[in-house]
């Protein structure tokens, strides 16, 4: 995927660029708001990683507002040291799709950027999800694996839905908390792990191969059974 990183801090930018390239993405970099806006507006990207405080007269918010004003709907992930709830709200209101505060773990950034870039593909409203032999009907709220019905609690259903919508991508615990529970804080207890392990009991245990995988130091990934 083609990703634009607008970040003025050399170390952070270098770290992010290197990581994204290693993950197989094509990455462009701008170290100030003016260049960032120019590149974002003139080229096509799958996602933009945007710092809030930038030199060059145009800060992250202005850049994004200008971009959205031109009907450019490239998914944008804010990366900012401004960590207050109001800052996040302001960032999302300006048109940001996600907000990650510094300091951050690269795995978290990568998972979120990939999720955004995938989402940007503009899929219409869908009623069925399918990953490998796992099928989910969003209307009847039924789940089958290899034709066999799986009974899920409402919360488990939403958890699995989130994993299936991000099939093949790493999903972090924070993403699950935000996406499935709509919580914007990190509990001390490993609540997410417990819920994922319960889901595994139902989705993976009765079958030969697991589909829900733990990604070390990052989170989880749902992917089709290995052939």
């Amino acid at each position, binding site marked *: 995927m083609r990703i634009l990183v607008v970040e003025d801090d050399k170390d952070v930018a270098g770290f992010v660029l290197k990581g994204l390239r290693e993950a197989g993405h094509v990455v462009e970099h701008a170290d100030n708001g003016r260049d960032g806006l120019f590149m974002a507006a003139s080229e096509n990207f799958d996602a933009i990683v945007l710092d809030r405080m930038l030199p060059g007269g145009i800060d992250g918010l202005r850049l994004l507002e200008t971009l959205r004003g031109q009907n450019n709907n490239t998914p944008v992930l804010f990366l900012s040291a401004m*960590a*207050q*709830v109001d800052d996040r709200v302001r960032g999302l209101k300006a048109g940001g799709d996600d907000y990650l505060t510094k300091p951050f773990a690269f795995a978290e950034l990568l998972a979120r950027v990939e999720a955004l870039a995938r989402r940007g593909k503009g899929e219409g409203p869908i009623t069925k999800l399918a990953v490998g032999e796992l099928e989910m009907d969003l209307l009847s709220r039924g789940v089958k694996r290899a034709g066999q019905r799986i009974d899920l609690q409402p*919360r488990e259903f939403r958890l699995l839905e989130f994993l299936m919508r991000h099939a093949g991508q790493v999903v972090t615990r924070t993403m699950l908390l935000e996406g499935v*529970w709509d919580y914007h804080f990190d*509990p*001390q*207890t490993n609540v997410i792990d417990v819920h994922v392990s319960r889901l595994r009991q139902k989705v993976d245990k009765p079958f030969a191969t697991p589909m829900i995988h733990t990604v070390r130091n990052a989170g989880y990934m749902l992917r089709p059974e290995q052939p």
Partner: protein
Amino acid sequence: MLGLRRPLVRSAGVRFGMIYAGVFALGTLALAVFLWWSTAGLLDRQTDAAINADTQGLSERYGEGGLPALVETIEQRLAGNVDDDALYLLTDPAAHRVVGNLSGWPVNVPRDAAWYDVQVERAGRRNLARLHRYELPGGFHLLVGRDVEVHAQMARLLTDALLWSAGIALLLGTAGALAVRSLFRMTLADVSATAAAISAGDLTRRVRVSGRGDEFDRLAETINDMLDRIGRLMDGVRQVSNAIAHDLRTPIARARARLEDASVHAASEADLRAAIERAEADLDGVIAIFQALLRIAEIEAGARRSAFATLDIAPLLLDLADLYGAAAEEHGQHLQPAIPPHLPAYGDREMIQQAVANLLDNALKFSPEGSTIRIEAGADANVGTFITVADEGPGIPDADRERATQRFFRGETARSTPGSGLGLSLVQAVATLHGGALRLADNRPGLRATLMLRSSPAVQVNATSFADQPAAAADAA
């Protein structure tokens, strides 16, 4: 003029004193005017009325019997005038006296006016008289009047008295103004001296309260409350700085030691990676502490109060119970919710979620296997909405309960478990921002933490109203 007045008027004490003196002088003036009008003025009006009535009678007699009847009537009246204050004079066209008790036409009485106040010669004395002149047919002139010397004396007396009282009023007004000013100065001097001392760094100073319970006392109490709050905040800041210095050093030192050790002693790349990962985890812990601190500061600053809304927290609590219930089971504990179908509260959804999550985190962390954790909620007419998380863990000893909500406080029993000592501080901050309180009580055994919130914005009284009550009251709830 302005240049002269400015420095004087700039003193509020002088201004208030002047206002006081002005009002006092105005009052005195009004009293004098009224006194004059109702005594001297009344006598004057009575004199005029008597003269008019007299003339009326004379004119009737003149109409009936002409000049002779008039002369006769005047003589009769003079004879019957016991007070000797009636004055009459009838003159012929040659200005000679026909009848009357005035020796001659008074000087200073021109012939073309009607009413006169003049001096007349009577029995060798010059007395003040009020006279009315009438023209009669045939060139005769008639003066009807009253001797008003007594009135005049009284008026002089009254004037003297009023002048004296004006002087005294001025004196008293000035004295009162000075008293008001000094009272003002005295009261404000204490406030400003206290404020100056506080600015200079002496946070222990307080404004003196006289105990009279007046406005100044209330001002002093308000200022003292404010100073207490500032003091507590300052203590908090000091505490936090110290705590940061102490508590963050440990994980940072650990991470540093690991990295240094690895860089010197690591035998293989795997060793190196493991050490780096552990150091990363240590630093993540430091970051988490910073985030919690910032979050508490953000909540305490009250910036998010604009996001307050009336909401039903019942589904919110059930969600949390669901989220944590699974984790509790994993730990061999049982989470038992007792939540009504609807529960109104007024506040910030995210903050309430996080506060309750912190209480549940603690309960799960400290409860032994096989124990029950209860999450209860309800509404109470007195305390509003309450959320209670009760566990069967070690609890918090009475002695520590007060300090349990301080940042970085960790009880003896908590030393061995991971944690930052910020969880309850955050709950406390959320409670305070919501005009509620966090009460910690003994669950025999275990801890019973009750978070109280307002159920609607209307009952907002005072942000500290709950917090001031003793924590023991939570047992009743």
